[in-house]
């Protein structure tokens, strides 16, 4: 089974490597996975809050 791969700019990869090492991550993969998980969770949370607000507005509970 092949794992998905993502291409990024070589210079950006070098910087990611440096930041990951400074932040104490054991690998670039671990660092990037953590960042992506957080980004996905934040986006979902934001969408969720937006939908709840829209529902409250429709039901007349907020302006």
């Amino acid at each position, binding site marked *: 089974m092949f794992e998905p791969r993502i291409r990024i700019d070589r210079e950006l990869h070098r910087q990611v490597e440096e930041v990951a090492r400074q932040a104490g991550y054991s690998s670039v993969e671990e660092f990037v996975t953590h960042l992506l998980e957080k980004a996905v969770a934040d986006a979902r949370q934001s969408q*969720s809050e937006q*939908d*709840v*607000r*829209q*529902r*409250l*507005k*429709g*039901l*007349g*509970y*907020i*302006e």
Partner: protein
Amino acid sequence: MIVVVTGLPRSGTSLMMQMLHAGGFPVLCDDQRPADDSNPAGYFEFEPIRRIDRDQSWLALAEGKAVKVVSPLLRYLPASQDYRLIFMARDLRETLRSQKTMLIRRGIDDGLNDSAMADHFSRHLTEIRQWIRKQDRFTVLDCDYARLVADPASGVDSVCDFLGVPLGRQAMRDVIRPELYRQRSEPEQ
């Protein structure tokens, strides 16, 4: 003491406000949202709560009274006060169906998917309950809507015990009308 009746929209918060009112507990509400087909006995809402995210100046008016604040707005309650929360719980499928019916009556299609809303509200309830537990200012009574309708006497007793004030229990029981429990889910097998 400020009593906050909370829960998701369409989880029985209006019924609880109506019960408190019938029992003689002062409620903070106005006539901005009159009774309609979705809430034939009235909403018992206070218009300024709709702006609670930017204006809490009404709070002084709530002292010694019960006020309805739906759970997604609880975080806006000022931290300067202690609150007794009556947290209404209702089967999420029923709640969503009831919300949908109310939206249709209001002529609104918000385009939101039921399954996504179920996920959002489910996550919201978990998070808000965790948040409430971390706050010293809340004392909570959980009240299940279906159980309240099925056994009004026990429900009314638990509310009165929680508030610790003498209320007209019979009058509170009398406002619970099972025929208004219109979005019942079939019990799961």
